[in-house]
């Protein structure tokens, strides 16, 4: 019989505790235990990034992360990204304006990737969001909508 592990996380800004089985994957903790189904489960092998969440600000693969490993961490999921009143934030607005999403299954993961980058920048020179986004698959769009959104966001950052 497995012992349960007590974890305490800060989830989308709120304290969340739980007693979980050691073999529970973070993606299932979020989707099934907490009902946060915005994070998607696609490949279940770490190839696609649809399950990307931010752990301590870092984009990570929640289908490869055990829930116990997130103990003590600050977790942000797609549900925590929009403004409190449900309106889209800057990243989401840029995507929406640029023809993203199509089927939408990759989209929460992509948004989290972009949020993670926004959180890191500008502390780390030499990093490029385009390179980061190579980590995530989209089968519908050919990535062009994302490219346009990145360009849009860069223009906004430059004040143009």
């Amino acid at each position: 019989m497995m012992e349960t592990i007590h974890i305490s996380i800060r989830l989308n800004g709120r304290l969340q505790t739980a007693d979980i089985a050691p073999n529970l994957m973070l993606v299932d903790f979020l989707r099934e235990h907490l009902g946060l189904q915005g994070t998607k489960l696609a490949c279940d092998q770490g190839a696609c990034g649809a399950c990307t969440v931010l752990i301590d600000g870092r984009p990570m693969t929640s289908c490869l992360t055990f829930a116990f490993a997130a103990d003590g961490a600050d977790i942000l999921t797609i549900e925590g990204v929009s403004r409190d009143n449900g309106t889209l934030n800057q990243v989401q607005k840029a995507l929406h304006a640029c023809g993203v999403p199509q089927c939408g299954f990759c989209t929460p993961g992509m948004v989290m990737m972009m949020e993670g980058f926004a959180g890191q920048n500008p502390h780390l020179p030499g990093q490029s969001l385009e390179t980061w986004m190579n980590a995530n698959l989209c089968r519908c769009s050919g990535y062009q909508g994302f490219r346009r959104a990145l360009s849009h966001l860069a223009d906004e950052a430059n004040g143009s």
Partner: protein
Amino acid sequence: MTALPNTLAHVGRSMADVNGHDKLTGAARYASDFNLAGMLHAKILRSPHPHARILSIDASAALAMPGVAGVVTGEDLAGLDHTYGMFIRDQPVIAYAKVRFAGEPVAAIAAETEELAYRALSAIRVEYDVLPPVSCIAEALAENAPPLFDGGLHPSALQPPPLCSTWVQEPAPNVLFDFSYSFGDIEDLFASCAHVSEDRFTLGRQSHAALEPHVAIALAPDRDHVEVWSNNQDPFLLREDIARIFGLEAGNVRFHAGLVGGGFGSKSYCKIEPIAVLLARKTGRPVRLALTMAESMMTVCDHAAEILLRTGVSATGETVVRDAVVELDGGAYADASPSVAMRMGTRFNGPYKWKGVRTRVRVIRTTTIPAGSFRGFGMGHVTWACESQMDMIAGRIRLRPDEFRARNFLEPGTSGAPAERVLDCDLTEGFNAVRSRMAKRTTSSDAGRGIGFAVACKGGGSSHRADARVEIHPTGDVTLAAGVTEIGQNTRTILTQIAAEVLGVDPVRIKVVNIDTHATPFDSGTHASNGATVAGLAVRDAATKAAAEVLLFAARQLKCGVEELSFRQMRILHGASSYLLGDLVDPQAQDDHPSFSGAASIQTPGGSLFWMPIWTAAEVEVDEETGIVRLTRLINAADVGRAINPQRCVSQIEGAAAQGLGQALFEDITYRDGQPLTATPLTYRMPRLADIPADFETIILEQGRGPGPFGAKGVGESGNLTIPAAIANAIADAVGARMTTLPMTPDKILRAIREAKPAIMATAGVSPSDR
């Protein structure tokens, strides 16, 4: 960009996806998010062998495990009409007596949790009598090849062959379907040609690899009723399939469909739903069967193929006659292969003029993943061979490839083949657009760089029935119900814009409801780029009728003639007066809260309703020492008739082009010893952002001749068709090496470069020894 003048309010605007907000915030719910209280979780035990007889299945240990509610195997198919397949029904719901591909479902378990279901799978004992695999076309057709089936014909729903063609069902062991097509005096025409080229082409096995795997939740409250939630693209076809398989009244089978996380043809027609239903009926509880993405890739794929193409041209470079012999690797079961074969077999004329075309397409059975419908329905295969060969022929007759094409395009308003719909687009205009844009900025004299073109033309909209219903509520809201599923082509947005335009209302007031086959109007399935056009026509007509109902009502209320009224922005306009619809509705009246609805049904005939042309120019950079190729520029143009939503048209082309790129350079499910090597998301290489050139242009032309609403046509399936050939042509331009096999991986390219070297040097007047 050719654009039609736009005086319309909503059609022609690049409105954002109506579900975009929910998709971006994680609020969107897909079938894989759906839960029913008390549902069991099902998992599948799959055959490790590509070919074997099932001697016994002992699930007793699994059944004894805590939390296991039931197991189904082939034995549970007794009394059922237990096979499915789009036209030839040879695929059992679950393996029956035999397994015919590694990965075929052999048993399925339903348990309280997915974890318990997986554990119980390991406790099922299956005894196999292993048979030799049949891993490729050559093996399937070899003398004494092991037959996958024992002979006899399977039940079929094959349509009579189209004009000029014949077909034979299951004519020989390991041959599922043999389709022939011909017009013109082929051999006479060849004899008259100054140049005849014969070339072979090969295609690998592409996987749809949609991100959301197949999922079905089935509920069987009693023996006569079934309710299913699934991410299938064809809820109405599925209703018929389930009814037939389980011997139920179609009206007692209810399908629910919502947002789908990608389809591309992998979720068309019957797939895993019957297994979920089987378990639901057996256990008496709701059952959720969710595949992993790897399992989805094992469920259906596109056809590997061999094509022998013989083409004759005149002394002055006119296309005269073409003969194609195609062998498609259909995998273990039919799925939609006969339909793919028929589509392919009637379209080898491509976008050019011919005096004669003959084709023979055979679907061969192998012990591999069943091949079915993939975006393009075989036109990608046709285009790979034909557009590659156009360049090869051009080289042999010393014409520039673009010139050779240009002088042979089919004229608008003419028909490319007997009884084929006349061409509704201007191929020359599109080609020139792409040619001139590529010429503008490229200096292809850079070493290792080359440019290639390809043109394709796929038909769409045939034999399709789409119904729609539009309801206008006095509150000012509009409900739109149509049976076309939302798989990422943003069809809901397109239909919303059409209804908004007809009704003159703000699109924000229009809601497209999820599909419930009990309430939603019928649609024959989400494929062949039918959504915008055929469902669009149905929505347009339904909206028009709903508006007419409003005016009839208003005329009664205002005691005037209908012809004096018009309806705009939820207001009834009567001369100088205007009344809000909600105000005209009397809350005290008998029929309180009436809504005004209109329904329409569109049935298109067989044969293409419209043509989707695609013109592509690609520029590549080839590293001659390693064979590594990089796509540096891509230009695609498409005619969409009228762009209901220009952004959506662009998105479809871009997305399809990426799939074409994958097919061109790296996507392939390879086999060794009957086992798939690259059928998982980790091993199957798919395009990522870095693979797509930044210099990627999509041109949407509006040549205005579409049969859809406001002159629209479909655009979903053309963007991938031309990419492989355009790249191959660019590689040939760059380094003189001709690729005839997909995918064009570096090792193949390097080999082709080496083989081409003596020929190049000879043409350049340099002998190898001078180097």
